């Protein structure tokens, strides 16, 4: 693209190429969303995987991390690592909370049987009764 300095036309070519790959990847994600891979978590995995690929391309080429001093990449990556920790621990908590839903109550806790135990809060609004922990059983 750049008709001006030869060395730079090289990097312009890299940008065009990057954009092309990004657009193709976008097409693939959208396409993949229409295909059922058998389980929604596979679809999720694919979508997030492609997004990560795209994000890496943007970071490496458009944001120049490839040529920058490593410190910038370290900053970028540590922010992702700490974000990962932030996701990890609440996730561990929410998915291992079973104990606190008392064994005997799981079945009873359905609104229909509400007459004999402490009334479910939110005055019987169905969805609002025993929340997160019970919901995924």
């Amino acid at each position, binding site marked *: *693209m*750049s008709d*001006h*300095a030869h060395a*730079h036309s090289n*990097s*312009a070519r890299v*940008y*065009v190429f*990057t*954009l092309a790959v*990004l*657009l193709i990847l*976008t097409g693939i*994600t*959208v396409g993949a*969303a229409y295909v059922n891979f058998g389980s*929604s978590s596979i*679809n*999720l995995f694919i*979508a*997030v995987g*492609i*997004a990560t690929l*795209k*994000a890496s391309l*943007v*970071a490496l*080429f*458009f*944001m120049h991390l490839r040529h*920058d*001093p490593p*410190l*910038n990449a370290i*900053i*970028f990556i*540590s*922010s*992702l690592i*700490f*974000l990962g920790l*932030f*996701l990890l621990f*609440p*996730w561990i908590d*929410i*998915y291992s909370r079973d104990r606190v839903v008392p064994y005997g109550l799981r079945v009873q806790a359905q609104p229909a049987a509400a007459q004999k135990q402490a009334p479910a809060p939110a005055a019987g*609004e*169905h*969805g*609002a009764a025993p*929340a*997160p922990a019970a*919901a*995924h059983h």
Partner: protein
Amino acid sequence: MSSETHVVEHGAEPAFRQHHFVDAEQQFSTSKIGMWLFLATEILMFGGLFVGYGLMQGVYPEAWVAGHHHLDRIMGAINTVFLLCSSFTMVMAVHASSTNQKSKTILNLLFTLAFAAGFLVIKYFEYSHKFHDGLLPGRYFAYHGGGPPQQAMFFGFYFVMTGLHGFHVVVGMALITWITIRASRGEFSSAYYTPVDLVGLYWHLVDLIWIYLFPLLYLVS
């Protein structure tokens, strides 16, 4: 007694260098570190929303599926393309300004602005469509088409996430306008194009966040 050093410092130095930096190189790389640190805080801020969104999706999968059916994949995909292209024109602008191509810099910045505006226009149509259907966040959720009640929460996330992102787009556009003006005044050259570079980094981050927002909000079922 210190005049000697001062002479050295003030020698043929460019006007943009601030007094506490030794040379332009140091100033440039310092600004970059500062920008990357700022981007890290942006990532963690948006990240908090992604964490909440992801955890709640695990808790109410049906509501999330039902909610995302209301989003228009095509619109989302077009917007993705817009932002990717704008990132490309942005990086071209940075490149042009670093190689002393003033008019090319300005042109690319204007392209970037145009793509960003296109993004907002499409967002506007998406939003007004949602408003019309009563697909509003939280308490204002007034959709009568049925489905799990936690869709209200899904749309809470949808509006907070896209709203915060949209806000960043607007801020980005303001910044781009500002450097376009400066570029037209001829303030940038291969010796000094830091503002273009930094705004570019910011703009790519806005793109980068959308790269995740798009599949997570529009595509995942």
